[in-house]
């Protein structure tokens, strides 16, 4: 689980990008963020890398699950 809560743009996406590169395109990744803008940015990046994204919201925090 990548914890990107509270990070400024575009650091959450950089964290996901690093995890994708280091994990050699892992089939599943989970990311936690606390702003809708991060959900949008990570979703766009994930889609460009061929992942499908599902999002769960709880108390203003979002857990994104990236799968391919």
């Amino acid at each position, binding site marked *: 689980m990548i914890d990107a809560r509270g990070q*400024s743009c575009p650091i959450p*996406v950089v964290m996901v990008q690093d995890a994708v590169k280091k994990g050699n395109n892992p089939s599943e990744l989970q990311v936690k963020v606390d702003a809708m803008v991060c959900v949008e940015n990570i979703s*766009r990046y994930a889609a460009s890398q061929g992942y499908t994204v599902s999002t769960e919201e709880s108390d203003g925090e979002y857990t994104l699950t990236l799968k391919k």
Partner: protein
Amino acid sequence: MSKHINPVVLITGILVGAAAVMLTALGNPPNMGFCIACFIRDIAGSLKLHTAEPVQYFRPEIVGLILGSTIMSLSSKEFRAKAGSSPATRFILGAFVMIGALVFLGCPLRMVIRMGGGDLNAFVGLAGFFAGILIGVFFLKKGFTLKRTYEVTKTEGFALPGIFVLLFVLFLAVPALFVFSESGPGSKHAPAVIALIVALVIGAMAQKSRLCMVGGMRDAVMFKDFNLLSGFAAIFVTVLIGNIALGNFAGFSTVSQPISHSSELWNFLGMALAGWGSVLLGGCPLRQLILAGEGNGDSAVTVLGMLVGAAFAHNFKLAGSADAVNDGVYTVGGIAPTGQAAVIIGFVVLLIISLANCTMLKKEGN
């Protein structure tokens, strides 16, 4: 182009461009329908934080942008009071972004508006802005972070919107408290109520779309994501078309451009400083206003840093002087030695901040 371009970003870019042309037609200075740096600088002057007589006016546009974002984020339940991500560092970054922008004579948004007005000096600024973004991106890839924010009490989130509402009410009710330019850019302004309403709409749309001048190029370079860059392009095209339609466009040139200088080295370096600093902050000056409107206390501190940076820029003659015709002689403006020194000091400060906050460089060092 990416398939993932949000039409709201494009529409916002078009609206910003149209609003900029309209506000200039209604009285704002040429190629300055919107300029976050210039308008915060004018507000600093109107509050007597600096005494440069030509640039003193309480710009309602800044109030409208912040409040538009507050209203939109409250209605979409995105308003969240957050703070705690290196506020003092952000204050310093805000001040140097402002100094870099005023050396160039405009924030990244005015840079695009000047480009659409045919000002080739702004294209040199664009090259510098891109170079600054590349430096910032290098450090982001090395793990740069100002650490995370945390949820704070709601009043923190309303601090900056509240200050600006209070000042705006005082501006309307007791204008004698403020000082206003009698000549120069500060004396040129659209009617206050119209400026406020236009900026409220733009602020709301900018919140919704996440429009950011630095984010466009940064995301294109880092992720091949052209979403925000489409807004940047839309502003340029709309302003260009608007200027042509209103007969304000006289071709592209570096000469006799309104509130602009042709000391190109300093156009380049000023915007490089603004670009690098904005990447470290996570967004351009416009975006900082919008984030402050959404309840982000760190962006509120950044805006206050910009206000103080603007005061320093004029109290210590750091800002650029526009090219001008004096007694029939065309004089190239530019940057005083104090301004040149401030830009160099700014680069050193940004380098220290960049190195000190890079997690990967620290790990490599260990």
